[in-house]
């Protein structure tokens, strides 16, 4: 995404129309120009989000990476020292860490969705900032942070145990799928939170209760076939399996269906976007 990096030279953030080239002959602003503006808005929102969440004091937004890393690491270490093995002979530490970190992403994105609009309501006075921009910037921030934490972990595990990911691209793809899924869900929740407080109350509960079935702490091949077929209906299971395929490769059998996961993500995002469009009219500023 174009964050602060692209806007090296001070550019007008919003308000003034961009100079020539942005407007088509028909008077219709070019889509590219709109997209460019949206990217700059999102980049600016990212920076704002960063400083409002973590401030500039002490380590500041280093916490962004440290938080998931600490949680994932502790869980991994706990299981590492409790010492029971896993079927398939996979490394205990990397299994739990790689199960926990994508889940952390999911939880962080979904749990922060209900408060997204309320906490950024004042920004909506600016014409160019839309709710979608706010959601995208928040979720991207979360995704980037968790991906960073994951990279640190994978590197550290590789350095300690000597086992490097088989296909790093699949790790990233799995995380991207997870982010897409969580993003779609967060759009729906954010839209819903405009109408009722229920989402704020229930989201934490639901993310906590669904933890066992999301797929973070089991592998599909451990289950009997009937259960496998049921479990594979859950889209997040595919994300976790993809991440594990990237890490462990052919060491363990993995089951995932990327088209299915993509379909789920597309549907969720479609409904989320539509709901957000509806909710926008009903937001009380």
């Amino acid at each position, binding site marked *: 995404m174009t964050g602060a990096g692209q806007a090296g030279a001070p550019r007008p953030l919003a308000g003034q*129309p961009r100079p020539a080239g942005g407007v088509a002959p028909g008077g219709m*602003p070019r889509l590219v120009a*709109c997209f460019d503006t949206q990217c700059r808005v999102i980049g600016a929102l990212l920076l704002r989000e960063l400083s409002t969440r973590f401030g500039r004091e002490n380590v500041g937004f280093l916490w962004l990476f440290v938080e998931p890393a600490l949680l994932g690491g502790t869980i991994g270490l706990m299981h590492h020292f409790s010492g029971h093995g896993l*079927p398939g002979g996979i490394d205990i530490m990397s299994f739990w860490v790689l199960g926990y970190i994508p889940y952390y992403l999911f939880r962080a994105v979904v749990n922060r969705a209900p408060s997204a609009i309320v906490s950024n309501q004042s920004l909506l006075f600016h014409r160019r900032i*839309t709710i979608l921009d706010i959601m995208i910037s928040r979720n991207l921030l979360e995704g980037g942070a968790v991906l960073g934490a994951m990279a640190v972990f994978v590197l550290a595990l590789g350095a300690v145990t000597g086992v490097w990911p088989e296909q790093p691209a699949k790790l990233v793809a799995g995380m991207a799928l997870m982010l897409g899924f969580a993003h779609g869900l967060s759009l729906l929740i954010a839209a819903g939170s405009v109408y009722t407080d229920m989402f704020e109350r229930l989201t934490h509960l639901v993310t906590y209760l669904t933890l066992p079935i999301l797929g973070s702490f089991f592998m599909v091949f451990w289950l009997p076939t009937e259960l496998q077929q049921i479990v594979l209906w859950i889209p997040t299971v595919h994300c976790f399996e993809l991440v594990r395929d990237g890490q462990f490769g052919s060491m363990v059998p993995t089951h995932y269906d990327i088209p299915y996961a993509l379909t789920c993500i597309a549907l969720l995002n*479609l409904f989320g976007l539509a709901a957000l469009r509806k909710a926008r009219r009903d937001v009380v500023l």
Partner: protein
Amino acid sequence: MTIWTRRSRLTEPTEQATLAPVGWSGPVARPPMLGRLRRWARRRSFLLAVILPTIMAGLWLFGFAANQYDSEARFLVRARQTGPSAGGLEAMIQSAGFTKGSEDAMGVRDYLQSHDVVAALRGRLPLVDIFRRPEADPIARLWWSDPSAERLLDYFRRMVKVQYDQTSGISTLTVKSFRSEDSQALAGELLALSEELVNRLNARLLEDGLRVAREEVARAEARLAASQSAMTEFRDRERSLDPSRSAAVALENLGKLEGSLTQARAELAEATRFSRADTPRMLQLRNRVEALSQQATEERSRITVSGHASTQQLGEYERLAVERDLARTQLASATASLERARADAQRQQIFLLRVVEPNRAEWARYPKATETVLYIFLCLSVGYGLAWLLIAGMREHAA
């Protein structure tokens, strides 16, 4: 709303366009072809992006796509007895209802999707011809008339699916092709090939398990034969079947002689008491004692003279006998362990049991035209909706 008119030769189009009063454009230049097309496309975007592709896919699938018949077979891969179960978490998982798949079944599954099976099939069936039947449509059929092994394998994997059900242990083989008899033949051949694979594996298992035991038996046999021939050689050389026995016989002879001698002496002593020395009985007795004592002396001297030699002989003989007995025991135990190994190997043997024979389809299940068209329509609609919403979101950022 603008009304487009034909371009007039006299007027300057751009000026006219900009100066035209609102609501009436006046004679405006006909926009260039590309622009018009773009405008039209923008207005009819749903038609273009969703309806048109769906209609085209529907036309193809309903009108032109060739029928594909599927044939299904099911089989079990099973060992007579499973190996010792592992402890720890694995046992826990098994007891909790989680099952570990059978390696043999997975091996057969992997074999059925390997280049190996494709190569073997090509030797038996005209695989490329089957996938390029004249009735096949140009999209679904194998595109190359002389495909490389990899392309053929990719196509083969698309047409042949093997699924393994961990709970029941049943593998399902599904074959698609353009003729129902082709599908059936392919499925049958694949089953036969997997049976051959299982047999090969069994032979290999049996061979590996028995090889060590067989070698052991051969070694024991050789040892026994060597000890026997050493014994024979010994007997030939020493001219004695059994030195210990012949020594015993000699000793027994000596004992008998000594006994008879003692008895004869006693009779002689008894006779000397009440008869003269020249009676025939006395003479007979004396002669007998003399003969017996001579015989005994001879015998004793023979034993004593050959004493050293016969002890040596005896020692060697004992060694040979012990060697022979050991060789016999070894052979017996080696034979027993061979039997055991054979039984073990037979217990470890795997079987491929056909549960469902490949069927001949009467009705083409594929391509599932209605489902596919619906699926395409839904996917495109979702994609269109997403794109529309995203673009609308972008437009809100317009200056």
